[in-house]
């Protein structure tokens, strides 16, 4: 019973924190410089990991799917099938999870450490609203950068797919691109891209919430980072489940 109560309290607090992000964002005196710095850090910090995993995923998926499609005699459809799987689901979710692990934990640990060492208090004493300076900019940065990272990751995945395809067979690049874009529609690209904004918001908000509310003590810094990854990853799957239901209801599947 106490677990249910603490879960409900935590959910309520997190929702209130997210609502405060919305309330604080439009106020005058937005920290543009800090937002740009965070966008650079967030993108730069996760691009090598996102890129390498995307490449591997694209190649592995192609190599593993090929025998199955070969047995049905539809090997020529391989580029489109892999591209559809990557763009619709694997790209956004895998990138979101890696982003949560890399960026979400980093934000949780950074803000947690700042909280524990009184840097957030020092910021407030220096005439800065720490919520606007630290939280709003980071949440905005993750919300804006994850969709960009997903687009880049999709492109790298398809490069992996092209190389994987040419290990056992021979496909030219123009034919590969034509095979993908012949069938790819607006409904394959747009809804997955929209959901990545929510994934990014969720990673930033959870990371900031866990770090900002770290209790005193160095132990809580590690705890904040760990919880930020676990909660954000879980929320990404939940949001994905909601997104697929919504797109299905809207007839976009």
């Amino acid at each position, binding site marked *: 019973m106490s677990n249910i109560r603490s879960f409900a309290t935590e959910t309520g607090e997190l929702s209130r924190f997210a609502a405060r992000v919305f309330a604080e964002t439009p106020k005058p005196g937005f920290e543009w410089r800090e937002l740009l710095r965070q966008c650079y850090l967030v993108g730069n910090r996760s691009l090598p990991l996102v890129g390498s995993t995307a490449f591997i995923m694209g190649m592995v998926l192609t190599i593993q799917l090929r025998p199955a499609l070969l047995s049905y005699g539809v090997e020529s459809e391989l580029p489109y099938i892999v591209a559809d799987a990557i763009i619709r689901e694997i790209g956004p979710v895998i990138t979101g999870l890696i982003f949560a692990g890399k960026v979400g934990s980093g934000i949780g640990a950074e803000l947690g450490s700042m909280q524990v*060492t009184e*840097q957030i*208090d*020092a*910021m407030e*004493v*220096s*005439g800065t609203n720490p919520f606007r300076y630290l939280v709003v900019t980071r949440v905005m940065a993750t919300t804006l950068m994850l969709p960009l990272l997903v687009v880049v990751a999709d492109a790298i995945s398809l490069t992996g797919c092209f190389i994987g395809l040419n290990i056992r067979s021979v496909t030219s690049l123009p034919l590969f691109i034509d095979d993908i874009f012949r069938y790819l529609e607006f409904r394959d690209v747009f809804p997955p891209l929209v959901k990545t904004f929510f994934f990014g918001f969720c990673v930033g908000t959870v990371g900031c919430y866990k770090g900002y509310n770290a209790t005193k003590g160095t132990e809580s810094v590690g705890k904040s980072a760990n919880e930020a990854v676990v909660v954000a990853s879980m929320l990404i799957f939940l949001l994905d489940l909601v997104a697929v239901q919504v797109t299905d209801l809207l007839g976009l599947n």
Partner: protein
Amino acid sequence: MKVRDKTYDLNEPVIRIRDLHLAFGTHKVLDGFDLTLHKREDLAVLGKSGSGKSVLIKCIIGLLQPDSGSIEVLGNDVSDIEHHALDQVRARVGFLFQSNALYDSMTVRENLEFPLRRHWIQLTPEESEAMVMEALGNVGLAETVDLMPSELSGGMRKRIALARTLIPDHGPRPHHEPGDQRPHGGDIREVPHQLHHHIPRHEMRGTNLRKRGRAAQRQVPRHGDRG
């Protein structure tokens, strides 16, 4: 909790605290606390660890809200003030944190410039640089201007934190006990006293060591486990 407060000078109080109450849950930390800090006065609040000295100082700077009572800083009641007005009061107060609270991701220069930029003080880059170098010169660490806090020793970090409190000028300077570090250039505990003679200020510190409290012009003892 009873507090002795010998009034030395009735002219121009810089900080005036009346009947301050603050409790965390059922635990009363401040129970009817009264205190007056006068202009150019150096005051030490003495008390055991956990007796509420830090809580008191955080109330003065508006980081904690008291349950009741009034705290006037430079004539403004910080317990009942608009956020913008509170920022203006804070711009005139130097606050030295127990843990230094230097920003890890910024160089020493950026750490010192931060309060200048954030309080929207209109300064040219040359003026800002001169103020930073002067503050660093006052604590004998001008050569550390481009270093990161992680590259400094504990004592140096303490001095840089002190330099940061000197930047927004001319107000009271509440701080926690400076600590035991003995960096190159002398004892860190002497720095506030040297500065007190060099730059006249009103200073208030919380300490659990009676010996250190005696260095102040006036002492306010805190009795009990908390309060």
